[in-house]
């Protein structure tokens, strides 16, 4: 054990984590500037540099920087932190650095391609919109860098397992599950980017099949959301109960939840393609069933996490049916962030069930309902958890005390209020038919556009509040990092479970076995419909770059 403790204070490990977080936060800052411009432009408020070219370019940058760069780098950094604090460090720091530099190089290439104006294809990059080859190559390098990280995470877990027969520490269990989901997800992306987009954008092939590309993209695109979500769940399960002075209500169910995500997160992609031609309705229905299955682990999570909080509230002296809620540490920015993130996720969960509802989806597909939905899920449930986690992590990776505590307290409140303004109005205008991804939504003063006008202004105001919150976030992190008082490394403690853990690992720790079953499910869900698609007489598309 003592060697583990020493390793957990290893400063080179910290540097690795800090490097990842620095890239994540920089991407977030740039993405936030883009976001506020877009929120105002949609409501037809003229801001500097406003033009369709800048709008759609910045929307591409916002999506890539937030959804792909901020999340991936934060999760990579957090994964390395979990490996350092639970299984005695990463198996190879050299390889972890290699992953970091490859991913950073890819990020820079893609970002430059976007900013040059040659790659305004949005973060879904549906062909036959064609970006500069550098856009796809950079994105591929970002993913390859994350694969190296994933390999390091798996190797760290296997190394620990060789000398331990006890259950894998829960935080690492969840992070390894996230890594597995990432490999399953990016296998689809690799087929699209390496097999279709790069050869096509370089001119090696003349045409591309957009439906096949979209199928590969959503093979990746939905499990991607669980790659974002699982690290947040790790924080909810394995850190939050410790913060509130409670206990994890059920360790076994937490492991079961992570395993269910491995099984069901990937064979669901057609629920993003409900309105697509070329895919038969029966396969869309099959994916609807698996999509609803993936709702189950989140519902279990809602119970377990809230029960864990109740244990904490009661241990802090709370009584009565709801009295324990008052006793929770609401002044703690990490707790406050996660509590608001969870509240936001209940809205997102219900919205998600509607999106997945097969035929009802036609009411919301590609309307502003969709960005409103994913801003309360990835944009709040995940992002606000990561923000709160940053306040918890920073003293543990830098040895500095959190600076500007009042700002750190206000920041999650602002984020929550801003996001509710943005998203509730966005859900409503989506139902009214307002599309997503438009520079202006006035449609030459049409009646429908008049009806959603004031709600769009409300959503724009939410965007401004969110931008203020983003500035607060960066101010707290920057001040802590550069000027925070040095108090030495704060020890990292993860939550204990209510029931003692068994001495030996159980079935839910057999992640290799569960991964094998997940691969079978993916083959069942995708092999036949892709074969059907390939046997059609298909006509490819040349590339278009209307930007």
């Amino acid at each position, binding site marked *: 054990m003592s060697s583990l403790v020493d390793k957990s204070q290893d400063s080179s490990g910290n540097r690795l984590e800090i490097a990842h977080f620095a890239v994540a936060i920089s991407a977030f800052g740039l993405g936030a500037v883009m976001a506020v411009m877009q929120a105002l432009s949609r409501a037809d408020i003229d801001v500097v540099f406003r033009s369709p070219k800048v709008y759609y370019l910045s929307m591409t940058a916002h999506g890539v920087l937030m959804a792909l760069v901020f999340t991936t780098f934060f999760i990579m950094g957090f994964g390395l932190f979990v490996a350092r604090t639970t299984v005695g460090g990463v198996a190879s720091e050299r390889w972890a650095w290699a992953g970091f530099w490859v991913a950073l190089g890819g990020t820079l290439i893609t970002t430059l391609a976007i900013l040059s104006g040659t790659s305004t294809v949005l973060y879904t990059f549906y062909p036959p919109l064609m970006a500069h080859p550098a856009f796809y190559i950079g994105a591929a390098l970002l993913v390859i860098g994350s694969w190296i990280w994933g390999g390091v995470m798996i190797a760290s877990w296997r190394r620990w397992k060789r000398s331990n027969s006890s259950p894998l*520490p829960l935080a690492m269990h969840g992070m390894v599950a996230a890594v597995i989901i990432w490999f399953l997800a990016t296998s689809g992306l690799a087929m699209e980017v390496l097999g279709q987009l790069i050869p096509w954008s370089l001119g090696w092939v003349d045409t591309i099949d957009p439906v096949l590309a979209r199928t590969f993209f959503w093979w990746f695109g939905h499990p991607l959301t669980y790659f974002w979500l699982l690290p947040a769940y790790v924080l909810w399960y394995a850190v939050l109960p410790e913060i509130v002075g409670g206990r994890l209500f059920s360790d076994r169910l937490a492991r079961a939840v992570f395993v269910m995500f491995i099984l069901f997160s990937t064979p669901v992609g057609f629920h993003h393609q*409900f309105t697509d*031609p070329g895919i038969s309705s029966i396969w869309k229905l099959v994916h609807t069933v698996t999509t609803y299955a993936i709702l*189950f682990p989140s519902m279990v999570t809602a119970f377990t996490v809230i*029960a864990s909080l109740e244990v904490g509230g009661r241990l802090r002296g709370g009584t009565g049916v709801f009295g324990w809620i008052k006793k929770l540490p609401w002044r703690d920015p990490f707790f406050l962030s996660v509590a608001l993130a969870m509240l936001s996720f209940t809205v997102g969960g219900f919205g998600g069930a509607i999106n997945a509802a097969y035929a009802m989806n036609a009411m919301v597909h590609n309307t502003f309902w969709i960005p409103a939905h994913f801003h309360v899920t990835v944009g709040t449930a995940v992002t606000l958890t990561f923000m709160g986690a940053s306040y918890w992590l920073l003293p543990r990776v830098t040895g500095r005390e959190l600076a500007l505590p009042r700002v750190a307290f206000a920041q999650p409140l602002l984020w929550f209020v801003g996001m509710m303004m943005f998203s509730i109005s966005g859900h409503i205008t989506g139902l009214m038919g307002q599309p997503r991804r438009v520079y202006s939504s006035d*449609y030459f003063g049409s009646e429908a556009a008049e009806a959603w006008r004031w709600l769009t202004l409300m959503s724009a105001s939410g965007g401004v509040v969110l931008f203020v919150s983003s500035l607060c976030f960066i101010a707290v992190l920057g001040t802590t990092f550069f000027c925070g008082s040095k108090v030495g490394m704060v020890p990292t403690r993860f939550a204990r479970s209510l029931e003692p853990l068994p001495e030996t690992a159980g079935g839910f720790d057999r992640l290799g076995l569960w991964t094998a079953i997940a691969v079978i499910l993916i083959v069942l869900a995708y092999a036949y419909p892709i074969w059907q698609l390939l046997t059609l007489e298909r006509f490819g598309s040349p590339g278009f770059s209307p930007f």
Partner: protein
Amino acid sequence: MSNAQSTSPVSRTMRVDVYERWWLWIASSLILGFLAIIVASSVLHAVHPPSHVETIDPATARTESEFASPGVFPQPDGSTLVVMVAAMFTFDPETVVVPVGEPVRFRITSPDVIHGFQIAGTNANVTVIPGYVSEFEVTFPRAGEYLVLCNEFCGLSHHMMQGRFIARSAREEDP
């Protein structure tokens, strides 16, 4: 360190709390209930998302197929066939007038990039993909004029791509 817990000498079978057990049943019943409604409505009432499987060469669609002369075609049984091209940055035909309460079958394709065809505020919503024909049927129970818009990014004038959809009762005169 979380490892400390694993060294606990106590080893007994973990149980699932009774309330948690209840919640697991409630959650799974809820999900099965949702699915039962979806599957029943798709099997019994044929409620499906637009899922037509038909391919077409996007290079020649506008010259050598039915999409060479798009338009609104009233059918003998009172229904309407709409053959439409969604291209950067227009819908052709731009205005569609149909009788209220009668089925309208849309056939749409794109000669360039992906577009979205949506009649704002309704569930007439389909993705239009080059190389494929999107087909779906809707019935408008109420008369009215609707905004038609493109809901998939298709280039710098994407937000300008729009049309009109008018459902009116048979008695009304042509404008």
